[in-house]
């Protein structure tokens, strides 16, 4: 379209004019060039109005050219790849790019949400705290309406098709920022052979050099930057990362970077990972993060066409776009004159309004020489225009800070503003360092470093390229010396041709600055047209004044009350101005109103990049046994137990959970079944003091356990509460094999190691985890012996030779195995342990051998029912961290003759009470009704209308018992152990209750005869 070239300068810039890129903005087609940002391309097309503001829907244009941009947010791309709230200044132009401005309803030119005058006056900072509160219902009514107009862009509505990777990286030196200071630091360090990572958030290295008309080493600044990057890339130990933002400085010098790798490339040419998170651990860090220019705060300073002076220079010189033909530059420092020079050189009309009595530095002198008109000691009090600035109202500002003389109006289509610079000290601050206010430069500068970081260049107060070059070079060398003390050359030596001194830049005088936080307005700050401080959150000077009036005096209070600095730009352009205004109003110095602590992130970071590749099945390790594939082939459904996948039940066609479980239970009770018990934690305990250790960590006694015998143990924490259980087998005089619960294995090992290493280092015991080494098949049921006898010839399976709770070694299906006669089902059971490499083979052999007995694999659900019928507990289900062995009716297990962990807690006055919740069995009066697990047992009868209804405990386990043909349950009930036979009411969620009788939890085979049945 014709307008698209209207503001593009005929030559110059770092755009590739041979590569046209088509894109869409708000449904209209535009063309830009390779090398453009969305911002520069739209500006080139003459699109000055690019956004609407958040609260008042005021027309907004581009204020900046970089990450500090507060206004120009777009919804970038569409569909599954859409990204909300992208700053146009950060979006590299790519073929086919589609963007929409947010807050523009129905269109950016005609926005129904626009609020002016009186209505916007109704909603000052914090207005919502003062109204909408007649009742909760009223608030909920208004809240829905507030939410309807809140927020910026739209979330994607479908899952992200892209992937994100992460990596750790290590370096002697990380340099953040590839402007002149950063490049100098990297060059100085890189030539010593040091390992250097240099990162920069922009699409190419160079920083301000790309916007500058100065020369470095005799080359135009942008060209020098290209050479520097080339030299760095040629160094084998140097890595240059562009489009890579250092967004967080964490503890111990961990700096987190995010590299944007894909969005600037056309679909189909993108790498496999859209973004990459770098977790860089460098010995030393050089922060060369530069500075952001601040706008000036005057009435209607948010009109499109009001733009930072530095951004004007950037658009002209880097992107070859002239943002205005008739410009006013409003500045309080010499740096603003750079824009005037750029404008003039590009052929624009320009006039400078300088709040100072006179320009004082080299740039001012150059402007004078170029014949640029300067209005000294004057300020712009107000911008005029409707959707774009059309004039600036200018008036004299006296030395006393008051307006004087007559206001005059300067027509213009561009108002460049330069209010001083804010050093980018975000990472320095995140590192824990305290910034120091510098009165002369009117900015916070880095204070003493809290970590191994040093700042160089504009972020450390350098105001000329020459200063930055020297500071970077010095910092690079010093950092290498600190990273590698004593080594002048770390690795390969630098070639003689490489530069061995800082880049050469002509000296310049930066001049002075007249701090100007709020430009006075004849109507006073409350009544003047809005003087914006925070553009994105529509916070004006009058809002800050209101906050102070209402008693909010600390900067943190003011920020929170007004929302200043809480936008996606995090107040990069507004916060210091806000602090200045606040200090001025309170009559304090800026550091007295509070310093701002910067928190990560420097700029927003994609969730996906932080999440990385560990999603879905890899969200956490999915641990499986060596028999897993067999379970899958059998159609097992799985249950998550800790990180393990365990077979839950094995449904046959047409079976639901209950049908399958009933079948599996009866198979074990009457025939034989197999459970993959490989997941149980197994710890090999070896050494002469092994029994002593067990005596400490279990509440029962282990001294007298014979070799070859097994015993059940309960483990307590020091609070006396049961935290794990399992059977431990004495394999030898000095060797035990401890079983833990599946989910508790790692915790138990850490617990044992802790006591062993820190409290009882004198005990001669070694612990080795063997969980993964052994595959365990629990072969349970009266026919288990018959099956096993077919497979194992070298063990005498007679009950006298191999009784319950004992262990043997033998050869099962040709594999050396440890066989334990222990049972969690109550039936005769052999747990066959073989090295897990042989696990599947042995499991399959068992199944072949068991075919004639109808051998049935069973899962955890059946295991639960079987043990429930026997009244065996499951730690974590029948206990909840508040249950003692006494509460479980296992008080007799606690050995009286020894101390053990947790034992003393059992006799504390409250723990020793007899009316604690205790484990009992429950038999419902209706035998067909299975109580819900978790149901509450009432203290009395259900009395409707009582609130609260007193409770006595809850159902911990509840099953249909196919063996007994009725329901069974276990419950923790107050004083339960002494209330056997009593009837209790169990509350249902439908408001009714069911009755049940307290009984022994051993519902089946109370004399324990089944373990020998065959």
């Amino acid at each position, binding site marked *: 379209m014709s307008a698209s070239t209207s503001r593009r300068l005929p030559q110059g810039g770092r755009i590739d004019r041979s590569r046209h890129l088509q894109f869409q903005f708000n449904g209209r087609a535009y063309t830009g060039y390779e090398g453009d940002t969305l911002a520069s391309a739209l500006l080139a097309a003459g699109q000055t109005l690019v956004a609407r503001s958040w609260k008042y829907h005021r027309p907004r244009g581009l204020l900046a050219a970089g990450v500090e941009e507060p206004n120009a947010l777009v919804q970038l791309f569409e569909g599954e790849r859409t990204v909300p709230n992208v700053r146009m200044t950060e979006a590299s132009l790519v073929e086919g790019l589609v963007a929409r401005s947010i807050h523009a309803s129905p269109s950016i030119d005609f926005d129904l949400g626009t609020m002016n005058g009186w209505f916007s006056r109704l909603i000052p900072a914090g207005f919502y705290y003062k109204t909408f509160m007649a009742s909760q219902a009223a608030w909920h009514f208004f809240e829905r309406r507030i939410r309807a107009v809140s927020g910026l862009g739209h979330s994607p509505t479908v899952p992200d098709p892209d992937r994100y990777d992460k990596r*750790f990286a290590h370096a002697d030196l990380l340099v953040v920022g590839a402007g002149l200071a950063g490049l100098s630091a990297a060059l100085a360090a890189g030539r010593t052979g040091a390992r250097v990572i240099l990162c920069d958030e922009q699409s190419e290295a160079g920083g301000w050099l790309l916007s500058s008309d100065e020369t470095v080493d005799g080359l135009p600044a942008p060209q020098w930057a290209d050479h520097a990057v080339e030299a760095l890339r040629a160094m084998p130990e140097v890595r240059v990362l562009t489009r890579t933002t250092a967004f967080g400085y*964490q*503890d*111990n*010098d*961990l700096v987190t970077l995010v590299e944007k790798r894909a969005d600037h490339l056309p679909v189909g040419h993108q790498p496999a990972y859209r973004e990459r998170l770098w*977790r860089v*651990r460098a010995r030393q860090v050089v922060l060369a993060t530069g500075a952001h220019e601040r706008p000036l705060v005057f009435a209607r300073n948010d009109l499109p066409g009001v733009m930072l002076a530095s951004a004007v220079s950037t658009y002209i010189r880097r992107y070859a776009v002239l943002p205005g033909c008739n410009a006013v530059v409003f500045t309080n420092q010499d740096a603003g004159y750079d824009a005037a020079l750029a404008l003039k050189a590009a052929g624009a009309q320009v006039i400078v309004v300088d709040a100072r009595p006179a320009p004082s530095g080299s740039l001012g002198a150059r402007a004078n020489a170029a014949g640029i008109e300067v209005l000294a000691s004057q300020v712009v009090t107000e911008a005029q225009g409707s959707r774009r600035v059309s004039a600036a109202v200018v008036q004299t500002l006296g030395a006393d800070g008051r307006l004087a003389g007559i206001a005059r109006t300067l027509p213009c289509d561009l108002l460049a503003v330069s209010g001083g610079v804010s050093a980018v000290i975000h990472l320095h601050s995140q590192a*824990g360092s305290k910034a120091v206010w510098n009165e002369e430069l009117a900015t916070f500068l880095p204070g003493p470093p*809290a970590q191994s970081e040093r700042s160089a260049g504009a972020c450390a107060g350098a105001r000329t390229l020459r200063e930055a070059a020297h500071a970077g070079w010095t910092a690079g060398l010093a950092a290498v010396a600190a990273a590698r003390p004593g080594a002048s050359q770390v690795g390969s030596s630098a070639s003689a041709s490489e530069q061995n001194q800082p880049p050469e830049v002509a000296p310049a005088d930066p001049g002075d600055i007249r701090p100007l936080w709020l430009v006075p307005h004849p109507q006073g700050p409350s009544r003047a047209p809005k003087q914006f401080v925070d553009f994105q959150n529509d916070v004006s000077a009058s809002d800050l004044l209101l906050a102070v009036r209402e008693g909010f005096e600390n900067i943190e209070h003011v920020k929170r009350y007004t929302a200043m600095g809480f936008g996606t730009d995090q107040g990069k352009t507004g916060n210091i101005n806000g602090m200045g205004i606040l200090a001025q109003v309170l009559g304090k110095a800026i550091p007295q109103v509070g310093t701002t602590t910067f928190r990560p992130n420097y700029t927003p970071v994609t969730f996906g990049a932080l999440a990385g590749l560990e999603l879905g099945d890899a969200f956490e390790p999915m641990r499986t046994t060596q028999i897993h594939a067999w379970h899958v082939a059998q159609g097992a459904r799985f249950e998550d137990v800790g990180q393990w996948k365990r077979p839950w039940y094995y449904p046959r066609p047409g079976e639901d959970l209950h049908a399958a479980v009933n079948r599996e239970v009866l198979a074990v009770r009457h025939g034989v079944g197999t459970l993959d018990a490989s997941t149980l934690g197994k710890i090999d305990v070896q050494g002469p003091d092994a029994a002593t250790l067990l005596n400490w960590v279990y509440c029962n006694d282990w001294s007298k356990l014979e070799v070859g015998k097994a015993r059940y143990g309960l483990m307590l924490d*020091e*609070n006396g509460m049961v935290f794990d259980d399992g059977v431990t087998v004495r394999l030898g005089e000095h060797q035990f094999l401890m079983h833990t619960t599946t989910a508790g294995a790692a915790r138990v090992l*850490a617990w044992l*190691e*802790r006591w062993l*290493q*820190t*409290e*009882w*280092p004198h005990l001669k015991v070694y612990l080795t985890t063997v969980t993964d080494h052994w595959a365990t098949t629990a072969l349970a049921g009266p026919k288990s012996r018959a099956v096993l006898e077919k497979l194992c010839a070298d063990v005498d399976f007679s009950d006298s030779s191999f009784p319950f709770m004992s262990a043997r070694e033998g050869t099962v299906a040709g594999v050396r195995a440890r066989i334990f006669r222990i049972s969690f089902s109550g039936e005769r059971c052999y747990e066959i342990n073989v090295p897990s490499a042989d696990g599947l083979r042995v499991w399959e052999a068992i199944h072949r051998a068991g075919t004639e007995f109808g051998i049935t694999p069973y899962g955890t659900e059946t295991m639960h029912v079987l043990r429930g019928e026997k009244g065996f507990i499951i730690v974590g289900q029948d206990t909840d961290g508040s249950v003692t062995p006494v509460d479980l009716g296992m008080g007799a297990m606690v050995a009286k003759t020894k*101390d053990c962990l947790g*034992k*003393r*807690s059992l*006799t*504390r*006055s409250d723990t020793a009470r007899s009316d604690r919740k205790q484990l009992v069995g429950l038999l419902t009066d209706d035998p067909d009704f299975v109580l819900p697990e978790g149901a509450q047992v009432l203290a009395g009868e259900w009395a409707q209308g009582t609130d609260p209804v007193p409770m006595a405990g809850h159902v911990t386990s509840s099953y249909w018992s196919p063996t007994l043909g009725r329901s069974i349950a276990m419950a923790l009930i107050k004083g339960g152990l002494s209330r056997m036979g009593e009837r209790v009411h169990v509350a249902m969620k439908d408001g009714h209750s069911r009755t049940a009788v307290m009984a022994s939890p051993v519902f089946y085979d109370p004399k324990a005869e089944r373990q020998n049945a065959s």
Partner: protein
Amino acid sequence: MLIIDCPFCGPRAESEFAYGGEGGIARPLATETLTDEQWGDYVFMRSNPKGLHHEQWRHASGCGKWFNALRDTLTYRFHGTWKIGAEPPEAFTRRVQPAAPVGETVVEGLAR
């Protein structure tokens, strides 16, 4: 992410370690003779200082060893790590001493 100097393996990333709470708490002997107060002090009461803290860590994804550390809980900076039973670093004596337990009895434990 912290860097922790395992006395056996050298400086490593925090993600390899497990934190074990306050260090130097000896388990009392003859626990049956303790009052509930003395026992409760041992089990639950912690100095939880803002400043130098004697604590225990385990190099869980590593050598598996527990060790002592002296760490500033405000700056998170480590002022030394040492093996169980070894001499603590010099800064150890500068740390804020834990306040006395409520009961005045000091419980005797195994010396380490």
